[in-house]
């Protein structure tokens, strides 16, 4: 691929938009799987609703660590909705591409592999955001009698969730790069998934974590993926400077994680030996 083509495409947003469009169209092909996923999510909601109701029944106070039952439910429901639009299985994709050699086809394209994946995923995320997150949000609003304020917090959430998605992408990209060294994609992926969902507060809200653990978690990038956007969405009494601090923290993590991912990929690129190539 010559340099001219490279620069041409690098400054051509059309290529990126086409990628996004293609993944949106692809997502629309799997209507049946969307239905089953919806059923699975509903089961999950039924379970956690009953579980947390039983848990809250064991204490006399309605508020535990600043969270009422309703707060906890809203948080967990939206966390699971956010998971279903954000999770793009990039580690699987990269692992498979490395194992069957498809990755070389993408490497010779006049676009960096990272941006290629980023825009492909962005399209899928956008589609899933519209078909899963927005309906879930309104169902939550109707069930809880509009418990989530409809103000500036929605805008904060949008900004925070985009930054969170970028951190999530950078983490996935980093972990996917590890697949260049090992064939155990399943093991690598499950470890990543557990660490991210647990340390980001997607399984148990961070508000319930014991103090030391909470402090440790706040030093890691994962809380910025789920906890920061959801906190900004649910509460509208956060002072503006605090909001700014949280978003800045996210932005720093985006930059740090992308740089780390790029360095790691650069260092690892030379170990690609696909099927004797």
């Amino acid at each position, binding site marked *: 691929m010559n340099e001219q083509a490279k620069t041409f495409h690098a400054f051509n947003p059309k290529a990126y938009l086409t990628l996004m469009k293609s993944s949106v169209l692809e997502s629309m092909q799997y209507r049946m799987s969307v239905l089953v996923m919806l059923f699975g999510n509903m089961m999950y909601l039924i379970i956690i609703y*009953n*579980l947390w109701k039983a*848990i809250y029944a064991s204490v006399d106070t309605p508020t535990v660590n600043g969270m009422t039952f309703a707060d906890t439910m809203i948080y967990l429901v939206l966390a699971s909705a956010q998971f279903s639009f954000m999770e793009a299985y990039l580690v699987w994709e990269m692992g498979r591409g490395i194992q069957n050699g498809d990755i070389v086809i993408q490497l010779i394209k006049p676009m960096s592999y990272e941006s290629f994946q980023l825009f492909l995923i962005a399209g899928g995320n956008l589609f899933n955001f519209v078909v899963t997150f927005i309906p879930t949000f309104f169902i939550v609003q109707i069930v809880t009698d509009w418990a989530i304020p409809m103000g500036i917090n929605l805008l904060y959430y949008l900004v925070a969730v985009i930054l969170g998605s970028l951190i999530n992408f950078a983490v996935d990209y980093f972990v996917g790069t590890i697949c260049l060294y*090992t064939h155990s994609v*399943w*093991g690598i992926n499950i470890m990543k998934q557990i660490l991210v969902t647990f340390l980001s507060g997607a*399984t*148990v809200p961070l508000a*319930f974590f014991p103090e030391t653990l909470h402090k440790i978690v706040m030093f890691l990038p994962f809380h910025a993926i789920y906890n920061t956007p959801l906190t900004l969405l649910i509460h509208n009494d956060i002072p503006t400077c605090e909001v700014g601090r949280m978003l800045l923290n996210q932005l720093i993590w985006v930059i740090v994680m992308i740089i780390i991912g790029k360095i790691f990929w650069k260092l690892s690129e030379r170990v690609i030996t696909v099927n004797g190539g």
Partner: protein
Amino acid sequence: MAKITFYLKIYVKILGQDIKSRMSYRSDFIISMVGMILTNVAEIMAFYIMFQNFNSVCGWSYYEMLFLYGFSLIALTPMQCLFENNWNLSMYVRRGDFIKYCFRPINIFFYYISEIFDIKGLGQLGMGILTLIYSWNKLGIPLTFLSMIKLIVALFAASLFFIAIMNFAAASCFYLINTGFLIGTVNKFRDYAKYPVTIFNKGFRFLFTFIIPIAFIAYYPSLLLVRPAEVAVLTWISPIYGILFFYISYRFWMHGVSKYSGTGS
């Protein structure tokens, strides 16, 4: 009898081949095992954090919940280790590769299932045993010959239920096209087996007892050891019900095979 020994012999042979080929990827084995154990550790941490803030789940204490969790991990192991190939069924059927199983003079279900042994499931088994011993001790359940017999029978019955549920999910690909995603969704039900079914209202209790019987994976059989005073009738019938449920899922699977006609190539 001769038939059983014949099948046993084949089983050991096929399984041995798979284990041999898997052991040649040692790092893969270690990484998968660590991943499996990490999953369980995170779930125990979640319990721990919950009980830092709350006293009980529907009257169940921390150690009782750990017992349920450990029990469910052990009960899920046979599915994880021995019936893992169910995961690939929809892919084999869609691509047409399934036809190769139809040309063997042995039971197709048996041959298909025995092909894969998932070693990483042993990590889960280890975590399950550790959790069970720990909570067993903390709860002060007497360790007698009878309680061991109860435990083994209860675990056997419990493991059949999840295998049967996954058989149904996998065999659906014979009836509908491309149902690979279904098994992933159904697999998530395993995570719900670790909670006492009493947290649900009547309707859902019925659903999780008779229709999607995940309450049999840990709750009903565990009552025998954790809360002998509360043992339900369902606990006693669970071995029979388990065998029946497994048998139905097996018939469903085999009926699906009879409908299979390849991809026409």
